[in-house]
């Protein structure tokens, strides 16, 4: 009665060979035990059907979840070009897989709902404990997607996830579901495994300047702040015109996102602005509410590094006295850009907390994780600019049986 996790990473230039190599390395670490679930992450360069053929070649037909991202994170380091495989063997974890799409035709909320129903159906009559989701990072309203899931599983059900990325190309992101290469989809699993998962989410960004009240919102578009078009907040702070900001908004909002005050939480909920709409409103990846206080946020490398350690600590503490067997990380591409050459240092800060355990992660366009405070009853939210860590644990009792 135990859980085993192995990881493998490859930089081979052919997607098939890279996936096959990474899979074999992970299987070797797993001592060739039966595979309960496989996680596959790759940089966008490997998003190809042959990637999944490589997995099948090495492992046969396994249950697999994965996505493309901007950079690959593993216990061995951060790669801007590579493939990573995590293999889990566990007789304590049960799950139901599901995929839903295309999101753009069904709508994010409907896709979220469809995913949750399908996953629950596949899980069966077992207790449900946590959802792991991977979604298309180009979905403009990530909150709506999450809302669809919450409609089915309840608003306090823990959801942990990441939005797949394509290295700031914003052209197409990919999801890997079993042996299928998908795009424009939401995939994931609902797990049963009480107290086996710990979640930590932090960003480290701090508010700057005075609070501004959001006066008009339309879904994920902040139309007006203090009665003025929302873009005015960037115009005023950066001393640039709307036209000047238009082409650099994404980069600007990576470093200076909007922070929404969340009562009871120590950190603000961050929102990246994707573009400016015709009225000067800011189209964000997540939603906001009228009356919310919005602040311009600023990050430093030190704060970002501290936040990573805090997120790791949070995920570790959530497991209480259980042994950490492995961890999955979703890190915002924004943090990756901010940290630059210090990303390796961030990884070592995480490893200092979690110890020498198999880690696999990917740089994403958005993260989904619950807020911890009592006011929010563990309700999951769509985040930007965070590092979200999921620890997979196992009780000491289980260890003793091994």
């Amino acid at each position, binding site marked *: 009665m135990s859980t085993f996790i192995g990881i493998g990473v490859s930089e081979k230039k052919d997607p098939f060979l890279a996936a096959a190599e990474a899979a074999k390395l992970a299987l070797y670490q797993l001592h060739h035990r039966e595979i309960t679930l496989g996680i596959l992450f790759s940089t966008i360069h490997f998003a190809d059907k042959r990637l999944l053929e490589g997995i099948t070649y090495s492992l046969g037909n396994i249950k697999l979840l994965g996505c493309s991202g901007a950079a690959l994170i593993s216990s061995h380091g951060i790669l801007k070009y590579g493939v990573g495989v995590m293999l889990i063997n566990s007789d304590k974890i049960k799950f139901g897989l599901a995929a839903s799409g295309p999101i753009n035709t069904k709508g994010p909320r409907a896709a979220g709902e469809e995913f949750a129903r399908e996953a629950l159906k596949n899980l069966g009559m077992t207790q449900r404990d946590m959802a792991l989701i991977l979604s298309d990072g180009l979905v403009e309203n990530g909150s709506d997607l999450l809302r669809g899931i919450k409609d089915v599983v309840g608003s306090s059900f823990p959801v942990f996830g990441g939005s797949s990325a394509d290295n700031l190309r914003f052209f197409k992101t990919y999801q890997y579901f079993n042996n299928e290469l998908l795009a424009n989809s939401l995939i994931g699993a609902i797990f049963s495994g009480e107290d086996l998962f710990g979640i930590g989410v932090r960003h480290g960004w701090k508010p700057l300047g005075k609070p501004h009240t959001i006066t008009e919102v339309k879904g994920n578009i902040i139309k007006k702040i203090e009665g003025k078009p929302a873009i005015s907040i960037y115009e005023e*702070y*950066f001393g640039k015109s709307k036209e000047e900001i238009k082409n650099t908004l994404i980069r600007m909002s990576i*470093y200076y996102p909007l922070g929404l005050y969340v009562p009871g939480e120590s950190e603000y909920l961050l929102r990246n602005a994707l573009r400016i709409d015709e009225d000067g409103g800011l189209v964000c990846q997540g939603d906001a509410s009228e009356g919310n206080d919005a602040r311009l946020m600023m990050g430093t490398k030190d704060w970002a590094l501290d936040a990573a350690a805090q997120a790791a600590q949070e995920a570790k503490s959530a497991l209480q006295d259980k042994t950490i067997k492995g961890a999955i990380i979703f890190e915002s591409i924004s943090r990756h850009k901010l940290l*630059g050459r210090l990303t390796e240092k961030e990884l070592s800060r995480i490893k200092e907390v979690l110890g020498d355990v198999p880690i696999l992660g990917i740089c994403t366009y958005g993260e989904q994780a619950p807020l911890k405070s009592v006011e929010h009853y563990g309700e999951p939210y769509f985040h930007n600019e965070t590092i979200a860590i999921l620890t997979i644990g196992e009780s000491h009792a289980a260890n003793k049986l091994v």
Partner: protein
Amino acid sequence: MPLTNSFKEPVILENILNFAGMFGLIAVIALIIILVFKMEKIKELQAQLAKLKRAFDELDGQAKLIVQTDLELHHAQEELDKKVTGLVTLQKLTRMISTTLDEEEIFRKLEEKHIVELGFDRALAFSKDDANIYRARISIGYTMEETNYIIKELLNHPLILDKVLDKNKVFSSLDTDKDKASKEIPDLIKLLDISSFVCAPMMKKDGAIGALILGCESPYTRLTEGDKDLVYILATQIGQALENAKLFEETWRSHQELEAKIQQRTKELSAALEEIKLISKRKTDFISAVSHELRTPLTSIKGYASILALGKLGVLPPEAKERVEKINKHSDNLSQLINNLLDISRIESGRVELKLESLNLKNITDSLTDMLAPAMKEKAIEFLVDLPTGSPLVKGDKIQIERVFINLVGNAIKFVPENGRITIKAKMLDPETVQVSVSDNGIGIPEKDLAKLGEEFFRIDNDVNAKVKGTGLGLSLVKSIVAAHKGKLTISSQPGKGSTFSFTLPRGVI
């Protein structure tokens, strides 16, 4: 009384009213005073609020300043990070390609992961092949079909090609409005299906041989001047590596040609040597046969001449006796000549089996002294023998080695003037080899004749040889004997000062 009472009531009322009025007045005054104070307080608070608001606005203003400065810092930091990462990758790539001497391999080393590490997504390189046609060398992010199409289309962009390939300048999508070539930027961006690019010449010593293009797909990747430098350095390194590969190939090719020539020449020389050996054998065989045929009749001539000279067939008249003695003497000379020739041919053809034994040089020189003493005495020659302590042993055939000494010392006696000096020395050349030298202070040998010495029948043209007859075979015989002992004969001489004949022999064992 009732009047008084009725009078008193209004007075009390009046007093009460008066009192109330006064109280009210006092209260109003007090309220006015309080109001005035409150007003002051409100004013003060309003002033403080305004001050706070001003401070708050000022702080917000400072926040704006901070954020703008921070943005600049971010850009600078990002550029620096990119540069450092780029330089690390560049250094790695340079090391890889500079150690490669195969042209195709140089291009193969540049993989997609390196392009990504350099901060780009796609790469294309093209250069002219032997037929002077542009050919794709690197293609990352494009299919072969797309690559060929792009290269074909690129040739329709003369302004960019002129700038990069002819003027050897690096060119990028940053260079908008910088010169004429910038007109072609939008077209190139569309053709390459990217958002930004850097194009740099791959330079060899005699100019650009092609171009390297690196491009970014994301419209949000910020290209910098630093990126241009990086790509320029990389393209230059590739050019230099190609130059090195070409030089190596040329050197290798000429080395191969030289090797082939040497092999051919060696083959020819071997054939010539075989022919020479054959000729030499034929010559030796001929000399041997002829000498043999000559010796038989010569023995008869010499025998009959001796009988006649001794008067066994009757006393000869003096004139006849003189002639017969000459016949006898010349027969002796001819016999010696034939014997020497036979010996040389035997030794050269390997027909003489050397009886190798350890010989004491001291014994040889002693018997030599006895043998040649009369001749040396005649010219009052000083004969010195300088052998190392312990008298080294040499390995050789006693008879043949004695002939070497007799010939060399005999020659020395011939060329040394009266009261001259002949020295025999021996030394260990190495643990296995003994070198023996015979030196004299005779007339010496002209430099031009040194190389010819040892050739059969060669005699130096000098006064001594003109007077003293010889066969010209003595030194040839010495040379053959020494060679048969795996030794070497060397001659050094200074005309007028003397000559030294040295030969080596293997060391003997006790």
